[in-house]
């Protein structure tokens, strides 16, 4: 009888939590969409680095920053060739970025392509780390889509080490989806929800294993204590 009552209480608690989550899903999902934006207002720097992808918006922000005299030079990491690039259907992303920058008034001699054939954000961070090893006091504004700034900032601060204080992340407003209603739109789900999956992957793959192990150990202790109490 006592066990049944305990089970019912647990089920009730779980149901209440689920109902609350469902009722509050709109503000929660909105917060989840906005949380990914970890960008800062730009400050004068020596370089702007455009992360590859979303060439419809990111290089435009970099060009605007150059024109506003917030940075004189632009960095773009060379990317790994995708199938479309191999088939010569489309130029590589860094090439598209370079073309957009030039079209928007950035002189060709102010654009530097960082070597490294980057396939991921992590690779782009490594390309910048190599560059900063030779430019030890350079300040860099890293431009990427707003929803991508959280993961980029995490990856860059991890990969840049001592240089991480030299970079500042600037958000390029995305037009892929409306971050305040992203869950209503398939493109929004593909963008925001997949960003959370990537964030989890990055934390597990490139992050320190210690916090995860500590969390698992704590969870195991809590479960053990609860079981012991139940047995008593």
């Amino acid at each position, binding site marked *: 009888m006592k066990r049944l009552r305990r089970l019912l209480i647990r089920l009730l608690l779980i149901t209440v939590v689920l109902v609350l989550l469902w009722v509050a899903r709109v503000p929660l999902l909105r917060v989840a969409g906005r949380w990914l934006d970890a960008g800062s207002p730009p400050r004068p720097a020596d370089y702007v680095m455009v992360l590859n992808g979303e060439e419809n918006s990111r290089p*435009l922000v970099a060009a605007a920053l150059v024109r506003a005299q917030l940075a004189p030079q632009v960095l773009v990491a060379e990317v790994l060739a995708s*199938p*479309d690039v191999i*088939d010569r259907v*489309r130029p590589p992303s860094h090439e598209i970025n370079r073309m957009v920058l030039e*079209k928007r008034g950035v002189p060709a001699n102010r654009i530097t392509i960082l070597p490294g054939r980057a396939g991921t954000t992590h690779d782009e961070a490594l390309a910048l780390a190599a560059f900063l090893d030779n430019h030890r006091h350079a300040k860099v504004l890293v431009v990427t889509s707003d929803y991508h700034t959280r993961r980029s900032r995490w990856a860059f601060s991890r990969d840049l080490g001592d240089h991480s204080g030299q970079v500042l992340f600037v958000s390029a407003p995305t037009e892929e989806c409306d971050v305040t209603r992203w869950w209503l739109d398939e493109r929004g789900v593909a963008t925001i929800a*997949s960003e959370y999956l990537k964030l989890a992957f990055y934390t597990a793959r490139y992050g320190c294993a210690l916090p995860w192990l500590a969390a698992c150990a704590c969870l195991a202790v809590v479960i053990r204590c609860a079981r012991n109490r139940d047995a008593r």
Partner: protein
Amino acid sequence: MQASSGGPKSMKSKRNLWAIAAAILLAAAALFHHALLRGLTRPLVACQPSGDFDYVGMISRTEGPDGDRCFDAAARLLAEDPRRRLLVVGAGPVRLIEMGVLPPFEEVVRRELARRGVTIGAISVVSGDGDRYAAAAVALAAWLDAHRDARVLLLCSQFRSAHTRRALNAAISASQAGRARICPLSDRRFDENNWWKCRPGWREVGIAWLIRMQGLLGDGQAAPPLRKTTNQYEEDFLRSVTNVKERTK
């Protein structure tokens, strides 16, 4: 003294049972992982092979055409029957095309098909949002309404083909649904038999599942954000940055 049902002995045997069950499950998962992982992609794929169509459809998305090696597939299908024509749904990366950075998609299609030895006449273009399957399906449904005898075989990426089919079913009446069929194209780097072996495979299957589950959160009919012109985008960005600076002063 009699041991109660919740005593240490019974706890131990219960724990042993759980451990055995977990070991069996793990062993089964390891043994059948290939079949399990392959089965995970089954709900994502819709294949409707058909020889009975007069338009080969392609979806033009911002990041490029939908489906790997779609030009190879289109060239093959067009060469099989010279009466077949080409239909493009979606506008592609509009701003990059307007800036002259990338050519319009029709130009890319002609170039790629010519490279594969196929010359085509007029290309029918269905303007619509190629980045959203729901919007593309609505645009295609309107085009099918205006072309009562046309039958289309739509090329799309393998793991998004079921979603494309679902979007078409929602947009086209049941009696007309057979006029638009799906041809899934697998990626050269992975397919249903090996997607878990490479990172692009994980990414594609993950996103395909997210899109498939999107119906649980919303109806998929939210209006896409307004696309600004290049100048407007840059001006709005600089204005927002200036506003933040003034507020933080």
